[in-house]
């Protein structure tokens, strides 16, 4: 059990310090794609803070999606999302990825990314500035840290609850044991 906990802690630490991202174009006009690449290349250089672009979804923690979801890419997007290992997060980049944008209700568009898979962070804009993408990743990491804190708090609370419950149950069983004695 201690080993499992250690590995879990290592994974959490790794995802916080160096999240690996995979970029998927679900039917964008390439404007947002250029901006995501721009935020990774030397001018803004997200790699200096440990964010690395990955080719395979099996190695990635964060799915960066651009564009409205078309009927042709819908199944592929779900496939890629299912291939990613837990814990996994999704960032929707651009107005089209958030709501469908100008392509909403088009004959071959299902809507935003959240019409197919759950999304953690929305970044509106047409096209999105690289600064906005960096801030989105930052916010996602903050969310991660807070979630871990909450989880720890929840675990502690559960432990306390369990203890109190067991204590209560013990008392109840004791009372129940006593009751039949009185009847007898």
């Amino acid at each position, binding site marked *: 059990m201690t080993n499992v906990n250690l590995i879990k802690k290592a994974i959490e630490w790794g995802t916080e310090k160096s999240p690996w991202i995979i970029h998927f174009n679900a039917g964008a006009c390439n404007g947002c794609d250029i901006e995501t690449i721009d935020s990774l290349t030397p001018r803004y250089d997200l790699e200096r803070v440990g964010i690395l672009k990955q080719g395979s979804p099996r190695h990635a923690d964060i799915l960066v999606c651009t564009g409205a979801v078309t*009927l*042709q890419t819908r199944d592929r997007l779900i496939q890629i999302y299912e291939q990613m290992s837990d814990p996994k997060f999704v960032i929707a980049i651009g107005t089209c990825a958030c709501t469908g944008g100008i392509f909403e209700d088009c*004959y*071959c568009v*299902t809507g935003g990314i959240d019409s197919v898979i759950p999304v953690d962070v929305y970044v509106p804009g047409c096209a999105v500035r690289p600064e906005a993408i960096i801030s989105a990743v930052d916010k996602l990491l903050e969310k991660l840290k807070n979630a871990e804190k909450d989880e720890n708090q929840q675990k502690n609370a559960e432990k306390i609850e369990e203890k109190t419950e067991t204590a209560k149950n013990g008392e109840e069983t004791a009372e129940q044991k006593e009751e039949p004695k009185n009847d007898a």
Partner: protein
Amino acid sequence: MTHDEAVVTALCKKFPFLSERISVQREKRIFTKPLTPEEFQQIIPYVHRELNFYRACHVVGTDDGDTLGLLYILTDKNNTLLILRESVPKSNPVVKSISSIYPSILLHERELADLFGVVVEGLPEGPRYPLPDGWPEGNYPMRKEWNPKYFDKNTMTYNDPNVKEVK
């Protein structure tokens, strides 16, 4: 005589039926009124070989009610646009492919076949473009009677409550 006028006079000499149906709308923009497919097929080889309109930029499809309109946009080295308009009845929209003369027009013809339901004769076999796999046949989303409201994207079926007959 400007280059545009020279093109117009040459076309009118060769094809008398064009004389009142072709006009220079503004500089470097020559438009024709709707032509039948037979007339269009006569004009295309002449325009390509003799008048040196060697490049086909684009094909625009339009839904004009009972007819479907096709606008073929051709250019030459002077950047003059010759816009040939073709119209076919919606009940029998059959057009001959010009991809043997202009190879770049192939994708546009596939698009017309997918989005407008134009039957393009002489189109080589290949994948559909640009509609997704599993799109139901007989649904042409750029036609005016087709409404995206009645299309179910999950099951890929089209159910129009106003039309009772299923073709």
